[in-house]
């Protein structure tokens, strides 16, 4: 166990924000889901008691009919904003006093950095270069992610859960987004903390050995199969996702509101990004399979 190596990786100035990100996501996920659970409990209570549902103010916050429903922006909102600005400024000042921004030697095209890593927010894409050719990992995949994100509101046909935290009413949507976010974060963590010289896999605590060689033969699925495995995968994964999307009574009602176009678009992005990408990673790591579809023009 090489603790020096762990410390070196963790304390690299540009890696510190990742720890902040992971801590922040963990905290706010807990914070948001706690409110979601409270709202879900309220939903169960009100479904069971229609009389109460008519009179209840339908929030988990404290409520009194005598209170003004609205407050003045000055001072009530501006006070909060001003406080937030001060706290962020202080935080940033302390961070900037405590930790110096990295500066390496002058750029030198003749001396390759090893490992040469992208900034941490893009390192996930770099990690995906292991599993996909550059045209896919570097260009098509980021485009699909951005387009998929932009289409997100147009594919979510349920009016439930607008403007409040809930888990039960929006399970499919939240699981989809959560899966994508988790893959992205996992790729960043692997790319930053696991990948060492030569972009080789080093477990935490393993010394980065610059002379290490990997004699690993990758293989492809037979070219004669053509697109058959990919098509078969899309059908199977689509069927599994369909099972998940129509699992409960509420899910089926939401599904009924979804148009054919919305649903097929959702299926395409879910199969490709949320199941296809992790599956290909798994095939590569577990069975050393490089390409699942070989053509004269491109390989996937």
């Amino acid at each position: 166990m090489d603790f020096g190596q762990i410390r070196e990786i963790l304390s690299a100035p540009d890696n510190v924000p990742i720890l902040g990100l992971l801590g922040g996501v963990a905290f706010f996920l807990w914070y948001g889901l706690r409110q979601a659970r409270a709202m879900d409990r309220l939903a169960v209570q009100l479904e069971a008691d229609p009389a109460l549902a008519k009179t209840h103010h339908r929030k988990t916050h404290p409520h009194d009919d005598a209170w003004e429903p609205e407050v003045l922006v000055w001072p009530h909102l501006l006070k909060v904003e001003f406080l937030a600005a001060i706290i962020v400024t202080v935080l940033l000042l302390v961070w900037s006093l405590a930790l110096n921004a990295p500066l390496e030697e002058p750029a030198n095209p003749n001396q390759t950095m090893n490992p040469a890593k992208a900034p941490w927010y893009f390192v996930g894409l770099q990690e995906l270069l292991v599993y996909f050719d550059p045209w896919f990992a570097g260009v098509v995949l980021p485009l699909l992610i951005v387009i998929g994100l932009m289409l997100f509101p147009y594919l979510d046909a349920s009016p439930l859960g607008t403007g409040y935290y809930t888990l039960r009413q929006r399970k499919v949507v939240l699981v989809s987004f959560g899966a994508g976010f988790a893959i992205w974060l996992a790729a960043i963590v692997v790319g930053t903390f696991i990948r060492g010289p030569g972009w080789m896999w080093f477990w935490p605590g393993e010394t980065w050995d610059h002379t290490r060689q990997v004699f690993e033969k990758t293989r492809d699925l037979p070219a004669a199969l053509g697109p058959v495995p990919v098509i078969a995968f899309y059908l199977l994964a689509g069927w599994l996702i369909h099972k998940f999307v129509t699992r409960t009574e509420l899910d089926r009602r939401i599904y009924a509101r979804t148009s054919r176009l919305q649903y097929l678009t959702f299926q395409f992005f879910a199969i490709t990004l949320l199941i296809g990408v992790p599956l290909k990673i798994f095939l590569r790591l577990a069975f050393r399979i490089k390409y699942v579809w070989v053509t004269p023009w491109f390989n996937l």
Partner: protein
Amino acid sequence: MKKTQLWKSVFRVKHDRTDTRTRSLAVLSNVFLHLHPTRVNRDAVRYSYTWGMGGISAYLFLVLLFTGALLMFYYHPTKFQAYRDILYLEHDVPFGRLLRNMHRWGAHLMVITVWLHMLRVVLTGAYKKPREFNWVVGVGLLVLTLLLSFTGYLLPDDQLGFWAVTVGTNMARATPLVGHEGPFGPQLGMTPFNDVRFGLLGGSVVDSNALLRAYVWHCIGIPVILLLLLGVHFWRVRKDGGISGPAPLLLDSEMKD
């Protein structure tokens, strides 16, 4: 003094009164505050709903504009000077190191807060009707934030930035159709000297032209586009009735089939 013509011409409203009308006017008649309505839902000022991440991202953007403008006084985007300017900033300019640190860590913090903002908007379903398009604008802002960070990475002209940008732009070679190593690129006549990567770098390698292009995109191009989209983003929030919640619960049984 508050009765003088000068004072009245600047502030217009009396700010020391606590009545509703004066306080509303304080927001309405102020160019910096008129983004806000005069009143908001009493639950909307709670930190628990928004986490303040959108506002903090916008504030960090202002901090970055300010520190970035100060950095521009000391920085020349040329291969000869860029790295020396960073050394000069770090060792000779008063508070230069603090300035650079704040710009760098502020940028990283902004990436984090933008992601958390997105997470919150998903968790609360705040992107739903009628706010779908504002979410699209938000995704655009997210991409621009990442591109701002990425173009800034090259500017110190050190090994870290150089190789990160080399790795990053090497992927552009493989762009389908318009990259010289991408699918169908060579068939369409793409070479290292006319493809999309050449356009990004102003050359076939990361060199002085790439530094200048990164600088111009970083300091002018992307911030201008981002500010435009930010204006649209805020304006839409306001037009859609302020922040999306906390809204009253809609029961399953009340959803129309």
